[in-house]
Structure formats: structure tokens, C-alpha cells
């Protein structure tokens, strides 16, 4: 309990620093909001245009596919706000040896590395992402209990996406250049926005069991659309546990490989 309080106090400082940073760079703060809106617009418009010519994709009709997309946009919004920035910084930290400072702190090394920067500009768009999710939720016919479960499921999905991304960026210990690994991560997020049934067997297997990105949004939304499919949520829970274990193994292997830049 004391440890949790300690982490909460440290996180409050991170939040305060990030907010101060956002208020200094006000143009960037506003541009982030514009970027998020462009992202939402292009994602939704792409799918809406596709469904003008296609009645369903792997059994998912327009309303169901757009519910999945808006669910993933809500997950991405949390991910972009609270962790994404840190993934880009890790590459420089490793290359320039700045990781030393985080490893020496009296706190778990993963915490400052992955949670110290928060994008406050993206936080401002939170209401929009939820409005879109509620709108498409209504169109897909979500009922009473579904709405109660929705926030918890979004958080669960954000957790799985974050852990998978953390595992992927530990590759930076081996590749050095940061942009490439982060682009791989972003592209896998794109895969996660599509219905699992849209993929052929081999791809579906890889993206469900090897890199489980197809469970991030698909499992909660499939459960919301048909509560008899609760097993898929169990699969998602298992994927979170396995990903957390993989993160532990990869992080430790990465730290063993890390050579501080200082002498």
C-alpha cells in the first residue's frame, strides 16, 4: 500500500511536469488536438466509404465494424495520452545512455521509462473519442449493462495494447534506431482496428496467439455484441498475463545488453 502511494506521488509529479510542458508549448498542444481530429476523421471516413460498396467484412456489418473502430479509437486515445510519447524517447535514452538515470532511481525501472511523459494535448480530446464511441455504440444497439461494462473494457484493452507495445519497444535494445521499431508498433495498431474474422487463417493465428493485437479490441467488442462469447474475454486476460511475462523477460534481457554511453 505504501509502495502504491509512493508511485502515485511520483506519477503526480510526472503529470505536473507534463502539464507545465504542454502549457509552454501551446502551439504543439493545439496541433496535437488537430492531429487527433484528422486521425479520427480519416479512420472513420475510410471505413464509411468502404461500407458504401461492401455490405460486411467477415460477417461484421457497418455498425459492428464502426463500433470496433470507435472502441479502438478510445483505446488509442488513452494510449496516446499516457504512454505513447515514452516509446519514442526510449530509443534516445538507450542510444545516448540517458537510461542510466532511470535505472538509478529508487523506483521500478519500467515506471519512469514508460510513464514519465504524458501528452496533455491528447487528453483534451477524450470527450470527443467517447462521444464517437457512444454514437456508434447506439448504432450497434448496445444495451444497459453493455454501457456499464464499456469503460472497464476500454481500460482492459488499453492495458493489453500498452503491454504489447512495451514488449515491442524493448527491441530498441538491439536495433538502436528508434523510428523503425515505433513504426512497426504503430502498424500493428492498425491491424488491431479490423475485425478478427477479416483475416485469413494464418494471419489470424499469428495476430491472436503470437502477437495478440487482434484481441485488443475484437475480444471486448465481440463480447459486447454477443455476451455468450465471454470465453474470448478469458483469452484476452490470458494474453495480458503472457504479455506481462514476456515484457519481464525481454526487459531484463535488454538491460543485460544495454551498454551505458558514459564511461
Amino acid at each position, binding site marked *: 500500500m505504501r509502495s502504491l502511494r509512493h508511485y502515485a506521488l511520483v506519477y503526480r509529479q510526472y503529470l505536473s511536469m507534463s502539464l507545465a510542458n504542454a502549457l509552454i508549448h501551446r502551439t504543439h498542444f493545439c496541433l496535437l488536438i488537430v492531429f487527433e481530429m484528422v486521425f479520427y476523421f480519416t479512420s472513420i471516413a475510410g471505413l464509411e466509404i468502404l461500407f458504401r460498396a461492401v455490405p460486411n467484412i467477415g460477417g461484421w456489418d457497418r455498425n459492428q465494424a464502426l463500433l470496433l473502430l470507435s472502441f479502438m479509437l478510445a483505446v488509442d486515445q488513452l494510449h496516446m495520452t499516457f504512454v505513447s510519447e515514452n516509446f519514442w524517447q526510449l530509443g534516445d535514452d538507450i542510444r545516448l545512455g540517458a537510461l542510466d538515470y532511470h535505472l538509478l532511481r529508487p523506483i521500478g525501472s519500467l515506471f519512469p521509462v514508460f510513464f514519465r511523459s504524458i501528452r496533455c494535448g491528447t487528453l483534451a480530446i477524450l470527450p470527443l473519442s467517447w462521444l464517437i464511441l457512444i454514437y456508434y455504440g447506439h448504432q450497434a444497439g448496445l444495451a444497459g449493462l453493455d454501457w456499464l461494462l464499456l469503460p472497464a473494457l476500454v481500460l482492459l484493452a488499453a492495458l493489453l495494447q500498452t503491454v504489447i507495445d512495451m514488449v515491442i519497444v524493448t527491441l530498441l535494445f538491439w*536495433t538502436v534506431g528508434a523510428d523503425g521499431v515505433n513504426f512497426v508498433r504503430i502498424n500493428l495498431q492498425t491491424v488491431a482496428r479490423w475485425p478478427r474474422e477479416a483475416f485469413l487463417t494464418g494471419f489470424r493465428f499469428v495476430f491472436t496467439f503470437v502477437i495478440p493485437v487482434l484481441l485488443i479490441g475484437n475480444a471486448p467488442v465481440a463480447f459486447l455484441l454477443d455476451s455468450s462469447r465471454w470465453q474470448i474475454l478469458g483469452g484476452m486476460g490470458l494474453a495480458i498475463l503472457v504479455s506481462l511475462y514476456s515484457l519481464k523477460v525481454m526487459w531484463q534481457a535488454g538491460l543485460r545488453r544495454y551498454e551505458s554511453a558514459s564511461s
Partner: protein
Amino acid sequence: MSLLTSPLQASPWLRTAQVSLSNIMTYKFNFIALVFLPPLVFLALRYNIWSTVLKNGNQTTAAGYDHQAMMAYQAWVFVLTIFVQGFVGNKIAEDIHKGKISAFLLYPFSFWQFHTATFLATLALQAVVAVIAISVFIGANIIVLPASPVLLVGLALTCAGAWIWYLFQYIIALSAFWLGEVWVVRSSLYLMCALASGSILPLEFFPANIIRILGWTPFPYLIYVPIRVLTGAPHDDLVLTTLIFVGWGLALTVLTNLVWRRGIRMYTGGGI
């Protein structure tokens, strides 16, 4: 200095290109992950989706495309994305942020020349990857190369598209004179371009009004129009296409000069 090496050493363009290639190849995985993997993931994604819809689903065509035509279109999107949109101008913005352009203001080789040489070197590398991809697609009977005159027109349009893309990247990078971070603007361009260029969906899927509006923007000329030409689809407005291309090229060149002049006026550099 031998006769064979002197022209190479004398030309700052070639030397810069050589150094840029060497820099790129130092981080090979980074290059592959930046230039090759994103289009590959998108190709895999589209292959899955269109196979599910047009092969395993209830319909055989969508907006006039059957499975084979859609696969050919997506294969060309893959090739053109690698060639046209492979260049990322983050180094340009970094040079401005870190005050490195002070040196270029004194060198006999300008900032623009240096980065254009880097772009041309990257383009050469992307061309190699694109040719390998085309060979694989031809071998797999996914695409067929058109007859020589059409191929030449297609290649010219593709190179012009790469040039327009470079100008976009350069202007966005120059916004580093005013902005602390330019990735937001660059990413917004990527997103708009992916939708409006026909990368995500062929423009036949779009409503007619939108297609008309997009026709006056440079985006379709980066991917959709070259693919129409390269796949031998009828394209009546080649003169208009060329005029729009040239118009955008000139407009972006003028804008590049304007932004540079404005930016350099307020630039304060450190030491050299």
C-alpha cells in the same frame, strides 16, 4: 587523384548522396522498418480484407474491382508507397532545431542542396526496393507491366509524385523554425494522404463530388493516378494531369522558398 575518382570527389552532390546512403545503411533494420515494413503490413492487411470480401464473401466485385484487379491495385500501392513516400524529412527539422544550419549558411553547398542530395540518395535506394517488389509481383502473376510508352509515362508520373512528396516533407520540416515538434504536422499529412491519394481505397469507392474535389489537390497524383496509368486503365486527362502536377510542383517550390526566407530571418544559431 585518379581520373576515375575525381569527378565523384569533386561533386558535392554525389559525395553527399554517398554519405547519406552510408548513414542509412548503418541502421539497416531502421531503414527496413521505416520504408519497407509499413507498406508490407498494409499490403498484408488489404490482402486479408479483400480476400475475405471478394473471394470468401458473398460478392465478387466492389466498385468495379474483382479480386484480381484489387490485388493488382494493392500491389502497385505497395510499390508506389515505397518509392514515392519513403522519404521522411525528420533530419531536416532536427538540423534546424539543433542549430546545425549555421554551418550551411557558410558552406558553398546550401542547406537545400544538401537535403535534396540526401533525398535523391534515399530515392535511389527506394527504387531498388521497388524494383525487387515489382519483380516479385510479376513472378507471382499479380501485376503485369504495361507496354513501354505507357510504362515511361507511368514512371515519369511516379518520379514527379516523389518530387511533390519531397517538397511537402521539406516545407513541413521548415516549420521547425516556428514549431518545437513537427511530427504532428507530418503525421497529419500522412493520414490525409493515405485516404486522399487512394492508398487505402481506390478513388472509385468515393462519392463523385469528393473525387471531383480531390482531383484539384495533389494527393491522387501521388498514388492513384500513376497506378491508373501503370495498370493501363483509360486515362483521358493526361494533359490536365500534367498541368495540375506542374502547377502543384511550382506552387510548392515557391512556398518552399517563401518559408525558408521567413524562417531564416528569425533563426538564431549557436556555434559552428
